[in-house]
């Protein structure tokens, strides 16, 4: 995960509660709480939207483009008992978004 080009920060978040489960790098703790809360808020807003749209789709990932960073949010698994989100921050100057999405998808598969 940390070897992805442009990697800056990542954290795992319990979608139901917004609790931060883990993050990397260690010194990224200054971002962890706000990043986890933001990821959970986005995922829950999309969950309400999915419920109301009822198009029988699930969220693969969410990409938020800031001026300097990409924020990628991806459900780690579709385990109904425990929905966990992975948030990854990537430096836009160094990241290849398509490659990063592939690597993040592969990484999530290793977690389940």
């Amino acid at each position, binding site marked *: 995960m940390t070897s992805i080009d442009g990697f800056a920060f990542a954290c795992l978040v319990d979608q139901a509660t917004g609790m931060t489960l883990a993050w990397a790098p260690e010194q990224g703790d200054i971002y962890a709480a706000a990043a986890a809360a933001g990821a959970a808020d986005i995922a829950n807003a999309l969950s309400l939207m999915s419920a109301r749209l009822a198009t029988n789709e699930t969220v693969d990932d969410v990409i938020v483009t800031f001026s300097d960073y990409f924020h990628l949010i991806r459900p780690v698994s579709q385990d109904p008992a425990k929905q966990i989100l992975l948030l990854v921050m990537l430096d836009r100057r160094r990241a290849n978004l398509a490659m990063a999405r592939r690597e993040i998808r592969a990484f999530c598969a290793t977690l*389940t």
Partner: protein
Amino acid sequence: MNDYNQQIATRLVRLATADCTGALPISGYSSGAIYLLDGHVVGAESSRTPASAAPGGATLSQAATIAESIIDAALDLLSSRSTCSRFRPAKIAPEAGAVSVSVSGLLGEVTRRRRLLQQMAGVSADLALIRNSELPMSRVQLTAMEWALLIRVQPRSTPRDLAWALRRSVFGTTVDVHRLIVLGLLRTADRPPQLTRRAKQPPRSPSSAQALSFGQALEPDKPAVKGAAARKATAGE
């Protein structure tokens, strides 16, 4: 806003400072214990929250489920007027530390959850619920967990009843129930509280529930829930 049980919190902080290992029994409205290994919380149980059904903690999902059961029990114990009795030093198997939480992280998470509960417009773990007999929209899409909750709602079921039925977190179930109320699929079985003369603002009733904001529940202290499995997972190359 540290409005949790100060007696238990103060005792936990002292035990953490002294790197204690053993059990802190708690009795009263909520009964249970909090287990520490070298000053870190490695377990918690409450008579009012289900224990984790996850075995071992080998996978990320299992580790997260165990961490959730610890925080869920601690939230219940620290939110009640229970009292703690004498700490019992005891050996705790090292594998019990597969998921460990710092005491400061635990207290920070309990505070964050109490803030979220305040946002929930009167929805609490012990609120009596009923299903709305008619869908308030032409169609709706639910997750498997939302469906599992919905079909178990009997007249006057509470989120705590549903959590026990599914052996999952009471807090997590309360959040999910809140979302089902926001969607209009569930409602409170009782009339919302009436306005009192002293109230400066009308209390928000569950029928006017709005989506939660985790961002608004942020506090300066950072939660530090770091299970070994979860740590390994993020560090994996």
